[in-house]
């Protein structure tokens, strides 16, 4: 869940020794903030720093905007929509403008997860038909005003699939040409399966996040989907392993994250532990990352969002739970 780098690293701007796709700071877009040097802790300054990463630093946006990321998996129910909602709101909290497109045409749920279900009046189908303009169909989140939701269609209406994929490309172009400026991220929540909806959803994407769980059914589907994405020309694919239970991994009842990586051969964007808070936040329509105090899964989502911004991947993974070392006097109290 963490990617680490010792403090003595000569290149402090890229905190975690990043993958090859990391853009050096010189070629960053104008939106990227330079790290204020005053906040950069050094070993001399903070001798007993526990967290090796920098304080109050904004992640540096790598790549060209808008970054169109499709969040997909072959299998259903592995957490695509949850990932989209949490990563999207994390990105918005980090100060990036985000448009989340719910491409799950038949079974859309992203609006529910974000608690915006009562505010979706128009969808892309209405925009295509000319019933409304695109800016009317975008639903702005009131909690983080740089986050917008766009639904493809209402549950009962049918999407004209003849130009579904093209419609998404037009959407991205239209979002680029907006007066407010280009959004930093366009996240596409992909439907399950490899049906017409999947083909539509992956059309405008440049990169993909593959969500999978550590079980063989999900892994087989993930491998197939990765193959299809690679055939379609999307090369930048990172995987996110969801619903990991370290206690089961320790008992060898579940594949570890490293096993999953060995089977799929994809760089890791994040590892999300199984957390009961996920269900609770889903039912409340309040994404996990906004929880105070943060839940374990929420922290993992935030870290994954951070890595997504920097086009980074994990260097180290949490494998198992160790019993906490307790002090000599710990029996006196907690």
């Amino acid at each position, binding site marked *: *869940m*963490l990617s*680490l780098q010792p403090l003595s690293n000569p290149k402090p701007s890229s905190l975690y020794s990043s993958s090859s796709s990391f853009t050096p700071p010189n070629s960053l877009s104008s939106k990227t903030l330079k790290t204020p040097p005053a906040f950069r802790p050094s070993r001399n300054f903070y001798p007993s720093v*526990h*967290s*090796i*990463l920098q*304080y*109050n*630093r904004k992640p540096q946006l790598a790549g060209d905007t808008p970054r169109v990321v499709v969040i997909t998996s072959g299998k259903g129910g592995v957490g695509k929509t949850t990932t989209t909602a949490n990563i999207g709101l*994390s990105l918005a909290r*980090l*100060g990036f403008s985000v448009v989340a497109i719910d491409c799950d*045409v*038949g079974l859309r749920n992203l609006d529910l997860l974000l608690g915006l279900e009562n505010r979706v009046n128009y969808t892309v189908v209405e*925009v295509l*038909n*000319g019933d409304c*303009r*695109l*800016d009317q169909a975008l639903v702005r989140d009131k909690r983080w005003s740089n986050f917008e939701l766009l639904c493809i*269609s209402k549950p009962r209406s*049918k*999407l*004209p*699939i*003849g*130009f579904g994929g*093209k419609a998404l490309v*037009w959407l991205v172009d*239209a979002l680029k*040409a907006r007066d407010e400026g280009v959004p930093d991220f366009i996240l596409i929540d992909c439907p399950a399966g490899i049906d017409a909806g999947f083909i539509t959803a992956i059309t405008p994407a440049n990169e993909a996040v593959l969500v999978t769980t550590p079980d063989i059914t999900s892994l087989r589907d993930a*491998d*197939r989907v990765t*193959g*299809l994405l*690679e*055939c*379609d020309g999307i090369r930048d694919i990172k995987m996110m392993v969801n619903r990991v239970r370290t206690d089961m991994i320790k008992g060898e009842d579940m594949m570890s994250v*490293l096993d999953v*990586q*060995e089977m*799929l*051969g*994809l*760089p890791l964007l994040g590892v999300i532990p199984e957390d009961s808070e996920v269900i609770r936040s889903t039912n409340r329509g309040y994404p996990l990352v906004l929880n105070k105090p*943060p839940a*374990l899964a929420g*922290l993992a989502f*935030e*870290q994954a969002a*951070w890595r997504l911004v920097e086009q980074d991947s994990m*260097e*180290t993974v949490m*494998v*198992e*739970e*160790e019993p*906490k*070392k307790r002090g000599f006097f710990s029996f006196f109290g907690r």
Partner: protein
Amino acid sequence: MATSIWTLQLHTVSVPLRIPSKAVDFRTKYLFDYAFWRYTRKRTFKKLGVVALGDSFTNGDGKNSKNLPDEVMVVKSEKRSLPVLLQQTVTKLQESVKSLPPATLLVKKHSGVSLAIGLSTMLTLLVFMVRSYLAKRSRRNRPGSVADLVRRGQLKSDRRGISNPLKYDDPFNNPLVKVSKSNSTVEMCGKVYRLAPVTLTKEQQAVHQKRRSRAYQWKRPTLFLREGDSVPPDVDPDTIRWIPANHPFATTASEIDEDLAQTNVYQKHGVPFRIQAEHEALQRKLEALQSVSNHSP
């Protein structure tokens, strides 16, 4: 007075005294200290003896009875005058009760004043509490107050008074994420996890990519046809996707043509296309109706 009350209490207890002491011991009803029991018993006996002595004096054989031991006296006196003794103790009790100052009088003496004082104190306290509660409620409800801002999530209560606002929470430098000095473990949300390095290399990634490219040959479908439609002549059959007529959400039929849809998506300002079209149609209809009505008379 106190002794008389004692006598009464012990007399009631002393009724089962004739039962052998072993039996009394086993009764749960009389689970008091055995030593105390014995002591009281002896005292009662002495008392009874004295009473009996008084009786014997009245009978006239006082000289002999003076020298007799207590126990014998007790037996005799108990045999003779138990009802008398009971009567006496009851009268003593009545006397003692009479001699006590009446409690109601004691209360009544100052009752009027103290009751008023108590009531007024209570009332004052009640009023004070209600007022403070109302004040607190109104303070909380005042729109725009700091408490209101905190409640609405505009202001973070834990960061009040800190001049530079924290725009984002660094998920890595969270107080809930602590990495050990040797970088081998991490503590998140109070649980310690062991860290293992990722071992995937570029070569392995390339091998996996090659494997997948061999396994999955796929072309993205560009043409969507309804079942029963004829295939156009110059189209690669791999890129055709057949959509069943009863597909739940996808349809090949569309009311508007592609160019129009594209302009609809790109439209930034003004009235949307269909709204305008409907409006114009209505207006045309209205004009036609008006012209008809103008011509007819």
